[in-house]
């Protein structure tokens, strides 16, 4: 990889043949590196040193319920792969290039594949920074609960116990960072829509409101008017990290539109327009860290709430408290709520026989973490419980650092609930145990 960057003319030819859609960004960024005067400004020592890091990882997740959904990829193995990640970080006075690329073998589908997780260029202009390319963004103060974090998620990865960074789906964006007088802002433009990745129906048992009906997907087209915009303005107020958020784009969870309600023959997954206005704060209080976040979800395509296939406008909130109770033991608690704003319209328009959502869905979470043996062994539990949906999701975890380079983790994913139509309850038959071994270099 080091030679690939140092040589100039043959960069694109060095890439293994992959799907062209995934590759357009990398050559673009590498060209940018040559356009940016990185090397001439770096000291000779830095120019010689091309930091190359990454990991080798094996990651398997098996369903322990003995049940198997129908389909070619069904089986006890929910997930299985061997993965090599290569990170390349090159900085100069005028900018920085960062690449994080994963090469992996999918053991369930039995095929090799490649994923560019991050590939961006940073440049600075005066007091502002620009980052262009594929990147990961996380906003908000929730712990596995997201209000103003409107960036794409991979719920299939999360539910099958993959390392937590794979909950994030990288997006191709341009981000501008500004600061003035103690207040900072991030402004993000996302021209390419990225939906949330839901657990695959081939691999996960889950609730299907339209069983056996042909499905299609209609994503927002790539045009200027569909560019998503997000902004975060943040600073410190009385020791509290405080932020305001704005978002204009689309719901990332698909809204299912049937061609007819009585006997549908085609269901289309659509992504209705959405605007979110929110705020968050976080700081030391009550002997720990207290956090709070709110957001108003404005469902732009159905403001009256009369179309049951489009999510209702809602008000969402969360509060959290985290505290160290004794050495190396931390407890975290959160309370989250989602209040539908046009519930009567939603209820009267929902087709009969469909499971109705609660007007005020609520969730509680608990995180317990204990470290042992000079913090080399971590034993933890994360638990979701919804008193309104009456379902739960438990994630027990044990992680041990065998050495500075090698760690092993075993993670459980246990779902359940009174009904099989709720968010966590539908995965009741998918309880699984995941093992990850990672060697970092």
């Amino acid at each position, binding site marked *: 990889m080091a030679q690939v960057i140092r040589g100039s003319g043959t960069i694109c030819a060095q890439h293994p043949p992959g799907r062209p859609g995934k590759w357009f960004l990398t050559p673009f960024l590498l060209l940018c590196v040559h356009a940016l005067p990185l090397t001439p400004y770096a000291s000779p020592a830095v120019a010689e040193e091309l930091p190359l*890091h990454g*990991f080798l990882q094996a990651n398997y997740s098996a369903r322990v319920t003995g049940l198997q959904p129908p389909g070619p990829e069904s089986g006890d193995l929910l997930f299985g792969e061997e993965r090599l990640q290569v990170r390349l970080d090159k*900085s100069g006075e005028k900018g920085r290039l960062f690449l994080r690329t994963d090469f992996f073998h999918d053991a369930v589908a039995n095929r090799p594949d490649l994923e560019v997780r991050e590939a961006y260029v*940073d440049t600075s202009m005066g007091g502002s*920074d620009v980052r262009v390319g594929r*990147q*990961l*963004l*996380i906003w908000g*103060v929730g712990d596995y609960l997201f209000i103003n974090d409107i960036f794409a998620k991979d719920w299939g990865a999360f539910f099958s116990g993959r390392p*937590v*960074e794979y909950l*994030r789906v990288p997006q191709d964006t341009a981000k501008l*960072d500004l*600061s003035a007088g103690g207040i*900072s802002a991030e402004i993000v433009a996302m021209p390419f829509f990225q939906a949330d990745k839901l657990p695959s129906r081939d691999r996960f048992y889950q609730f299907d409101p339209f069983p056996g009906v042909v499905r299609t997907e209609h994503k927002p087209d790539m045009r200027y008017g569909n560019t998503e915009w997000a902004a975060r303005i*943040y600073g410190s107020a009385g*020791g509290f*990290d405080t932020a305001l958020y704005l978002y204009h784009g689309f719901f990332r969870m698909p809204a299912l539109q049937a061609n007819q309600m009585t006997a549908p023959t085609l269901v289309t997954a659509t992504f209705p327009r959405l605007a979110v206005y929110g705020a968050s704060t*976080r*700081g*030391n209080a009550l*002997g*720990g*860290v207290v*956090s709070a976040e709110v957001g108003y979800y404005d469902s732009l395509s159905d403001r009256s709430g009369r179309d049951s296939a489009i999510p209702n406008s809602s008000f969402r909130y969360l509060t959290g408290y*985290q*505290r*160290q109770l*004794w*050495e*190396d033991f*931390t407890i975290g608690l959160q309370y989250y709520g989602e209040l539908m704003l046009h519930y009567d319209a939603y209820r009267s328009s929902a087709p009969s026989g469909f499971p109705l959502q609660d007007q005020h869905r609520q969730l509680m979470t608990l995180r317990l973490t204990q*470290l042992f043996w*000079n*913090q*080399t062994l971590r034993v933890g539990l994360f638990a979701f419980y919804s008193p309104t949906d009456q379902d739960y999701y438990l994630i027990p975890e044990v992680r041990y*650092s065998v*050495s*500075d*380079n090698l*760690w092993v983790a075993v993670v459980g994913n246990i779902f359940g609930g009174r009904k099989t139509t709720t968010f966590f309850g539908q995965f009741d038959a998918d309880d699984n145990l995941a093992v990850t071994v*990672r060697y*970092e*270099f």
Partner: protein
Amino acid sequence: MARHVLLMMFALVLATSVAVGEDAASVVRRSQEAFHSAGMDLRARVKMTLLTKEGQQRLRDLTMLRKNEAGGDQRYYLYFHGPADVRGTVFMVYKYPMKEDDRWLFLPALNLVQRVAARDSRSSFVGSDFSYEDVSGRDVEADTHKVLRTEALENRQTVVIESVPAREADYSKKLSWIEQATSLPLKEEYYDLQGALYKIFTADEIREVQGFPTATKRTMTNVKTGHKTEVTFENVAYNLGLGEEIFTERALRKPPEKWLK
């Protein structure tokens, strides 16, 4: 001649006054300043080696940036170069003398800034035998101090101070050998709540950097478990003019490379 004798006597009185006349809290305060707040700011490459009794080693390699603020407040920016699984992680602390610290953690794999609960300053710093307080200092008022004696420790004149916690601590008593010439602690002994010795700190190498005596090698040994942590401070520099913008959330996500080499 008489003037010389007078001067010598005066010097002698001054030296003894450090041990006897000056109150213990002032000695500790001066020692804290020399050890944890020398200069306006500091940069150092800190290498911690964690050693088990069986000889297994783990390394924590970080750059420490520290800036002193008004009223005894301090800001720390700790950037981890290694080991591999924490490379790029940043730990930032706003330390206040009279209230709980503000602590942030940046995880590069997630591009995530977290706020860390900081109630117990005696808990281990990154799994080492040093606690957060051992790294950044403990409030002088958190203990009652008493001068026990003066004695030479490896040919260096020290004042031995006994500190008994007035506030929450994991020790019942601490003995410190504070060098008179530099005000640096050369050795510390921590006694547990049962009164048994359990941790020993030693400053193994002291160098003068830009006129500031600096403990460039330090060791903390847990005599109960046999685990110990050896620390070296390399590329130490003071008064660099570190700006406020380094100690911000924005700099957590975009580390100030200039200072991290």
